[in-house]
């Protein structure tokens, strides 16, 4: 049923329908609406789950590690500093192969304190072994939560569903919320592969010597390599029931594009308009919206970007000392090809600064004008500071 709701509530509706059993969360702007609406569901009894009001994000994830190790479906949500505080345990969750799902609201890390959207927080955690799925709008958020549970439980890797602060979390949009029966068909109860059991006692996560450590780590990578295949299966089933699909990425007019703009999050919506505009002016431009960042979908990246002459990556994040992170990963995917486009790296929208139609067009023209890209990322719209 179509309802108008903010992105946060799309998350909480999906969590409720997914029959999550243990939730543990700590409030941080702009994730608070997720946590609050889940608390309301819990309090009014419309959700059969345990809700732990923990005293920090680190404890939130610790509690879920405990719960998930018992073989139940678990969920948390956080943002920015909360995610950073969880860092140690993000590594732990993935290495423990627990299918925890987290809603992560992209927000800048301070100082200065900044509550608005910025992707540096989630991308800083790219080494931890979590599946990362970036969403563009409320519907995608809702759908991706369901898909994340299926996917995580299939490969035994945790997954984070990422959305922009305020632009997505607090923006009201129409969202088609499916009924419980349909969701149950897509997402049956968890069949855990890891479960503490007094009838079959074992120790989990104990001391592991060098002689088997590489195998443990390699096994995580093997799981990551299964993700694209599994994701497709999940999307096929989802499409069959709900008639929607997103793909690991979405190419828009990339077939004949000379320049492809790579954008993620809500900015991708803005970019669709930009592409439309430019194309009507005769520009051979395309948009590649990336949804799945981890595992990094190298094959598809190569497939869609290799034919172009130039790629303009718009990063709403930065890795100090190098470049925008999407740009970095894309360059790494393309570098071994015989023929590949030049990759232009642009930084825009950090700390919630608006990414407008004009800004994106400016990026396009800049890309078109310059034969080759600079080594350094180009920071868009920087003001003079005394």
């Amino acid at each position, binding site marked *: 049923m179509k309802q108008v709701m903010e992105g946060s509530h799309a998350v909480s509706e999906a969590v409720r329908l997914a029959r999550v*059993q*243990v939730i*543990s969360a700590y409030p941080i702007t702009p994730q608070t609406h997720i946590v609050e609406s889940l608390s309301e569901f819990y309090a009014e009894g419309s959700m*059969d*789950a*345990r809700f*732990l*009001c*923990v*005293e*920090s994000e*680190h*404890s*939130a994830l*610790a*509690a*879920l*590690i*405990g*719960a*998930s*190790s*018992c*073989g*139940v479906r*678990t969920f948390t949500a956080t943002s920015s500093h909360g995610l950073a505080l969880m860092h*140690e*345990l993000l590594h*732990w969750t993935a290495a423990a192969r627990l299918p925890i799902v987290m809603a992560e609201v992209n927000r800048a890390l301070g100082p200065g304190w900044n509550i608005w959207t910025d992707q540096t927080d989630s991308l800083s955690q790219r080494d931890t072994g979590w599946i990362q799925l970036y969403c563009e709008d409320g519907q995608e958020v809702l759908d991706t939560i369901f898909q994340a549970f299926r996917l995580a439980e299939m490969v035994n890797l945790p997954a984070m569903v990422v959305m922009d602060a305020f632009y997505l979390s607090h923006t009201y949009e129409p969202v088609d919320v499916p009924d419980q029966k349909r969701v149950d068909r897509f997402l049956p109860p968890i069949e855990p592969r890891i479960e*503490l*059991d*007094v009838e*079959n*006692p*074992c*120790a*989990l*996560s*104990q*001391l*592991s*010597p060098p002689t*088997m450590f590489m195998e443990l780590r390699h096994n995580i990578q093997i799981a990551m390599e299964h993700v694209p295949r599994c994701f497709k299966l999940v999307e096929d089933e989802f499409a069959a029931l709900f008639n929607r699909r997103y793909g690991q990425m979405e190419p828009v007019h990339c077939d004949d594009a000379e320049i492809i703009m790579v954008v993620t999050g809500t900015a991708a919506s803005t970019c669709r308009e930009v592409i439309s505009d430019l194309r009507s002016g005769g520009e051979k431009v395309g948009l590649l919206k990336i949804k799945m960042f981890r595992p990094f979908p190298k094959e598809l990246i190569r497939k869609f970007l290799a034919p172009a002459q130039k790629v303009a990556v718009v990063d709403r994040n930065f890795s100090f000392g190098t470049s925008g992170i999407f740009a970095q990963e894309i360059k790494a995917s393309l570098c071994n090809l015989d023929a590949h486009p030049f990759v232009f790296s642009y930084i825009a929208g950090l700390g919630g600064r608006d990414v407008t139609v004009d800004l994106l067009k400016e990026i396009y023209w800049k890309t078109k004008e310059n034969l080759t890209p600079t080594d350094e990322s180009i920071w868009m719209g920087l003001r003079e500071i005394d």
Partner: protein
Amino acid sequence: MMRQFNIPDADYMSPGHLACAGCGAAIAMKFALKALGRQTVVIIPAGCWAIIAGTYPYITLKVPILHTAFETSGATASGVRAALDMKGDRDTTVMAWAGDGGTFDIGFQSLSGAVERNDDFIYVCYDNEAYMNTGVQRSSATPYGTRTTTTPGKGWKKTRKKNIVEILAAHRIPYAATASIAFPEDMVKKFQRAKEIKGGTRFIHIFATCPTGWRTPTETSVKIARLAVQTNMFPLYEVEDGLKYTINCKGDRPVAEYLKLQGRFKHLTDNDIKNIQETADKDWNILLGKTRG
């Protein structure tokens, strides 16, 4: 049979574990599981027991173990309990088994949070009074007067041991108690009591001698744990709902008898020992006062 102590026979711990010879923490776990039985899940954060419990692929306990990060025992136990409840299992006892580091210091926040939420599990701190697993560095459970590798030589610890039971009593925790490996019946009784009190958090603080870190002969581990109680350095008592105090044993020996057996206190002068005696007497009187209140 003329048994000295009457406690359950069955053991849920196997030999072949990696504890040092004479380890008090090993004896503590042995007694704890005798009391709690098979239907127990143990959460072990980083610390001596993370190693004692066995490296891959071995396990020394006959109950499930979830190893966790150092500072997470309280939260992890909360999560395990929540999950078991959701699975309809109200019978399995959840026990967090942390050292003094993971309880008094880095794990304190997590413990406090869990107790404030009054989550249903037993939190056990096996206290060997320093970070033993990483090489005998001081913790806030290290008593005044101790030499450790981070309070060496003249820099021996000048601050007093944190009183964890008092802190949790202030949380109005349903049940908190101290125990010593030299008093097996008392310890088993407390664990059995803790097991029966469902619906809230229970805390047991165990005195666990460490011959390696305290520089004591391995054969005296139980004797020292007994002396600690007999000299009121580690009184045995229980607190219900944070307010009702019951003392289980009254000590009457001078602290010097306890201190002189241990290498970690070897440097103390008679004056230092006098100060320690005064503090011990004062603390004991405060505790006595609480039983009347």
